[in-house]
């Protein structure tokens, strides 16, 4: 076991898989010699060569569309989009092409690729560098959407993503990249896409989150009165969602809070709330609370902490559903 940050876990997993499978190539802006702006692909070009770790032109639709072609022709491309804010130019290729090929060809043309994208706020980056667009790629059918919150999960989910026969959007929460280290098992293991993780068990309220927000939830739970027993679920996969895990937990607790960085309207939090009220209606003691970013543009760095849900807001929501 080695102590690793999220970045290190991803780097070493990419290396592992490139070693194992010669079809795997990494491509994107600055991923080569520079190792990516977050250094996630650091050292990989040196190790695997310029044909496997490829600096591309500054061209997100190009990266996405060419990766689709690579995948169709039998490669396992891992395109990196430098920040989630630059998924915009690649949107059409991702949701209208990567996501649709299998279905529209009845399984005869497929796109096994893993789109790596740093995501979310909290690192005081410039504008367009702090968004959380996971709902967009969940609403559009045909993609899988993953967002690991820990180095250990990242390793297992990334292996699953690369080996998945379908396109996976692999969101990497920037705030977690180097925020802590943990023991990551040395041996190969996969974590199935579509399985949530119960971070801590509880009986009074279910807190559902993913990505960097999980840590705000943990902080909030630390502040709860001794006698409150909260269950924390890290979805890890946004789509397909582990509805079973969510429903099972809320069936037990009867109360739920969903926490995300993204704005509220038509979001993953909306979906979770809608799902819970559908499936757990008679068990619910209080409305599902959504603690989310606001329905405005993610502000620039000076105000970003006022936008992102923090432990205080999460704690308050928990107290509200308990007091309802």
């Amino acid at each position, binding site marked *: 076991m080695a102590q690793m940050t999220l970045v290190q876990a991803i780097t070493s997993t990419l290396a592992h898989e490139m070693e194992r499978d010669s079809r795997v*190539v990494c491509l994107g802006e600055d991923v080569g010699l520079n190792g990516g702006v977050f250094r996630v692909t650091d050292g990989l070009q040196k190790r695997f060569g310029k*044909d496997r770790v*490829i600096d*591309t*032109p500054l*061209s997100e*639709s*190009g990266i*996405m*569309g*060419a*990766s*689709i*072609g*690579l*995948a*169709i*022709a*039998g*490669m396992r*491309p891992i395109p990196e989009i430098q920040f989630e804010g630059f998924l915009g*130019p690649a949107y*059409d*290729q991702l949701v*209208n*092409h990567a996501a649709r090929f*299998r*279905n*529209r*060809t*009845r*399984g*005869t*043309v*497929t796109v096994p690729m893993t789109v790596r994208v740093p995501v979310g706020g909290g690192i005081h980056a410039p504008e367009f560098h702090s968004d959380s667009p996971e709902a967009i790629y969940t609403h559009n*059918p*045909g993609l*899988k959407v993953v967002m690991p919150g820990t180095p250990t999960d990242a390793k297992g989910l990334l292996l699953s993503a690369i080996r*998945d*026969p*379908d396109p996976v959007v692999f969101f990497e929460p920037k705030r977690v990249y180097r925020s802590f280290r943990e023991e990551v098992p040395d041996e190969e293991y996969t974590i199935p896409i*579509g399985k949530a993780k119960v971070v801590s068990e509880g009986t009074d309220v279910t807190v559902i989150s993913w990505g960097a927000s999980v840590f705000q939830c943990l902080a909030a739970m630390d502040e709860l009165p001794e006698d409150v027993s909260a269950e924390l679920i890290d979805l890890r996969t946004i*789509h*397909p*969602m582990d*509805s*079973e895990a969510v*429903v*099972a937990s809320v*069936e037990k607790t009867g109360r739920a809070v969903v926490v995300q960085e993204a704005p509220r309207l038509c979001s993953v939090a909306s979906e979770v709330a809608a799902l819970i009220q*559908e*499936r*757990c*209606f*008679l068990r619910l003691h209080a409305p599902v609370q959504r603690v989310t970013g606001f329905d405005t543009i993610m502000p620039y760095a000076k105000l970003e902490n006022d936008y992102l849900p923090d432990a205080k807001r999460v704690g308050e929501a928990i107290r509200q559903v308990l007091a309802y």
Partner: protein
Amino acid sequence: MPIRTVYQATIEHTQILDERGVLDPALSKPGTPGILTDEQVLHLYERMLEARAVDERAFVLQRSNRMYTYPQNKGQEAAALGSGFAMRRGTDWIVPCYRENAAMVMHGMPWHHIYLHWMGDERGNVVPPGVRVMPIAVPIGTQMLHATGIAWAAKLRREDAVVITYFGDGATSEGDFHEALNFAATFGVPAIFFCQNNQWAISVPRETQTASETIAQKGLGYGAACQQVDGNDLFAVHKAVYDARERARAGGGVTIIEAMTYRLGDHTTADDARRYRDQAEVEAWQARDPILRTRVYLESKGLWDAQRQRAGEERAKAFATEVVRAAEGIAPPKPEEMFDHLYAEMPPELRLQRDTKRTSSLGQDPSQAGLRSEPQRA
């Protein structure tokens, strides 16, 4: 030097078989690589007749409500067949738009799949095993990036495969055209960008589409090889693609070819081209119909005559009837199929939607077993 020339370029237009059906002797000198033989021309002429017949039948089917919107290929058969014929079936890739049906079929896509597509049936996009033809691409310009990626894979894997992708004059205005050509040229992938410049993008004429003198010169900005050809000239089209393919195989990278042709029909069966273009223009191009031109050539060589023409047209019609039969002989798709191919493995919630589709409003019927507390698993 205060002012110095840092770049110079020239674009040429090639025609080998002229409007009167006469072959240029210099360009078709015996032994010139990529010049079609008589036998090949005869073969391609029959394919042209078939393509035209299937195309015209589609129009009839649409008008009698047996097909939905259909984009006619009429007038562009030389461009599709001349180019397709220069590519090697099963090795090279065809990445089409929707006006080169004959090229798709030449490389193994069944004709009736093309019908099925426009009949609103995804099974029209099924690519048979071993066939290297991508499905029809409706969103304009997008397929060129897939072609680039496929060609890139061939290069990375050191496969001897070349990719040709087709697009219209209108498609060159999309950002994806630009990104695809730039990627292709930058990485030196074995790809051929084949523009069917049929002078119109629905109602928008070529001059409104872009202010450049030619489409071919758009390749200059990427360092691609650029050429314009008479797109209704089977010989010139074939030769240009043949050369481009050889160049690509030799590591010479990407070529853009602008084939000057014309859409003789409406944009699609939902369009009425009389609203926006002159009949005189259409008639001028009708006189340059590639089928006509090829026929005159074959007749001038004594390889064809009126009687063979009648027989050929009959065969083509019968062929079209077979295509209709194949397309209409398939049982209608089952509603469940819309779920079956979204992912390799169906996620539980999707399976729930599939399995309860016929019985509930949306997989949410609380009366269904275990639904409320335990979603049913795959």
